[in-house]
């Protein structure tokens, strides 16, 4: 046994005091094209040149998404939904990345990608079924190339990778994008997705919205270095983008998708943003975070900065904003009306869709339940 017991030892630090062990620069560079103050800036690697119409389009997307999201929160409070997971604050990350996609690209979301769904033309009311409790998703992913919301954290990263492997096999030049959160980065499935995508050079973009929180846990509970750096050790690039800057998110995602399309393999994007609201309507963030943090991030609001830019540059007038206000109200009203009219599923729906090709046990249970149900009717009729 070789024991070097003579050497002086530094005192043992307890595992809770580890901040100084952090490596790399404390605050890595963000890719930013529009400052929180609404000023356009340039970045050496990522550029973008959008028409005023396109810029207004992005603004409209964010405003309508935020309005839809707020309406869903209200509907939850009114008891129309069982739960809602708000994207408040993450509009730029979602609209920017969502608008970088082509129709033939494929999206694997978590449960919070309402803005991406919007970009995919998924009717917002479709998203509400699972939160109301009338289904567990239920839309057809192939209609808009937008997969079902996935609740088990990280699982979809592998589905996206497998799908992308299929795209490559088909010789298509589509790309795939997998969304997940800062918390999800700790799941083994996400790491395995990095491994598989790198080994097979799959055309998939990993889009991590680092909104600083996984329910009550700050990002320091998941990693001690910036998340975008995770990619490097798997053999593909990672980049951190200002997740509240819709232009930067669009530019970086577009570049990553282009890499994927042209056979250069996966890439990780860390969109540095903030969850402005509670984790879900069931959550109470006052238990674990301070208001000041939120206030700091309010100054970086993704919508406000684009509005400033549009106004300052004379690319949008009051009529545009007023029209959008009206459109928002109409959207909210439609959502409200559709949700309130959403019927509960029929009892017997429990026995549908467990299998595509049928299953004897399901048939047996369905028949027994129908008989049981009928016994009430008969009993009632009998009275």
């Amino acid at each position, binding site marked *: 046994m070789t024991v070097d017991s003579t050497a002086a030892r530094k005192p043992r630090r*307890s*595992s*809770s005091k580890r901040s100084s062990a952090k490596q790399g620069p404390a605050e890595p560079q963000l890719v930013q094209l529009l400052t929180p103050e609404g000023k356009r800036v340039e970045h050496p690697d990522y550029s973008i040149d959008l028409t005023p119409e396109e810029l207004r389009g992005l603004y409209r997307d964010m405003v309508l998404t935020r309005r839809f999201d707020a309406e869903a929160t209200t509907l939850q409070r009114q008891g129309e939904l*069982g*739960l809602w997971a708000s994207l408040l604050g993450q509009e730029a990350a979602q609209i920017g990345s969502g608008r970088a996609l082509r129709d033939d690209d494929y999206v694997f979301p978590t449960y919070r990608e309402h803005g991406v769904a919007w970009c995919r033309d998924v009717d917002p009311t479709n998203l509400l*079924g*699972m*939160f*109301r*409790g*009338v*289904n*567990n*998703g239920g839309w057809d992913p192939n209609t808009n190339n937008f997969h079902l919301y996935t*609740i*088990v*954290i990280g699982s979809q990263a592998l589905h996206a990778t497998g799908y992308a492997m299929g795209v490559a096999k088909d010789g298509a030049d589509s790309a795939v994008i997998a969304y997940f959160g800062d*918390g*999800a980065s*700790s*799941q*083994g*499935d996400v790491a395995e997705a990095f491994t598989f995508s790198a080994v097979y050079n799959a055309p998939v973009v990993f889009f991590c919205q680092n909104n600083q929180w*996984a*329910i*009550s*846990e700050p990002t320091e*509970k*998941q990693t001690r270095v910036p998340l975008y750096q995770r990619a490097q050790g798997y053999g593909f690039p990672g980049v951190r983008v200002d997740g509240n800057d819709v232009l930067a998110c669009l530019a970086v995602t577009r570049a990553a998708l282009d890499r994927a399309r042209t056979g250069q393999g996966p890439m990780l994007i860390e969109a540095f943003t903030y969850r402005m609201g509670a984790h879900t309507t*069931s*959550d*109470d963030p006052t*238990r*674990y975070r301070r208001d000041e943090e939120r206030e700091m991030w309010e100054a970086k609001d993704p919508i406000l900065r684009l509005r400033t830019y549009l106004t300052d540059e004379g690319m949008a007038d009051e009529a545009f904003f007023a029209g959008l206000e009206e459109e928002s109200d109409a959207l909210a009203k439609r959502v409200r009306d559709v949700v309130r009219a959403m019927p*509960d*599923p029929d*009892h017997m*729906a*429990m*026995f549908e869709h*467990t299998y595509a090709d049928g*299953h004897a*046990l*399901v048939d047996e*249970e369905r028949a027994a*339940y129908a008989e*049981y149900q009928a*016994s*009430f009717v008969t009993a009632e009729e009998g009275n």
Partner: protein
Amino acid sequence: MATEKMSLLKAINASLRTALENDPKVLIMGEDVGKLGGVFRVTDGLQKDFGEERVIDTPLAESGIVGTAIGLALRGYRPVVEIQFDGFVFPAYDQIVTQLAKMHARSLGKVKLPVVIRIPYGGGIGAVEHHSESPEALFAHVAGLKCVSPSNASDAYWMMQQAIASDDPVIYFEPKRRYHDKSELDTAAIPGPLHTARVTRPGTDLTLAAYGPMVKVCLDAAAAAAEEGKSIEVVDLRSMSPIDFDTLQTSVEKTGRLVVVHEAPVFLGTGSEIAARITERCFYHLEAPVLRVGGFHAPYPPSRLEDEYLPDLDRVLDAVDRALAY
């Protein structure tokens, strides 16, 4: 503490607090168990009082949580792990089945793994997918694990004390829809053994067996049946591995009829084992086949359907009637 009326949730919290106080080796680990106190607040206040070294917010990775808990147990700690919801235990399933359950045997008894895994389970709370499941059979089938589920505050407190004291891994299933049900808790009482069943209501015509969330449904059904002149005995099994077949056998030898109720799907649910074994033990006493009431062979449905999916008073009484009709 004398006798006190307490919710099942608060009783678990009190039991964890007692354990943390009594044994410096006890640790609480899981996602959001710290400041938030868990999504249900079961660990409320514990990190504040015992610090981040004893009540540990973990990265979001269930295999990592259970795998590191095994390592901590090997170092002499007694980790109590929280899985946030039933449907999220599966990433940890490999560590539980291939490591936690087998290491004692692998070492020919030299290694002990006193790890408790708390799983809030079952439906009835209007939640989204993966938040309402009853996976207990998937653990009870696995040798090396023990599985229990309390149905009231007193059991919740004492069974947690016993689970933490056990040198074997224990999966502690918490009936989340009963978290806020209150009942008497006497923290001075000396409890019976962890893996025994309890006759909660005596009766002579038929035995209803259940555990966790379904005990209340069975008691309600027994009360309703009593109004129709039927005398139903209710057995709270409390433990799904091992199952206390002796208590059940005694009951069935008396009543001649057994209905087992659980939320988990009937097919290969714990009720299947109970039916098979009780039929073997009581072949000449049974006047009807053991009937089972449980979930259907389908993923747990969206919440607007869960009242149809979950066994309720009517479905239990229907089975009681069918059993009595033999």
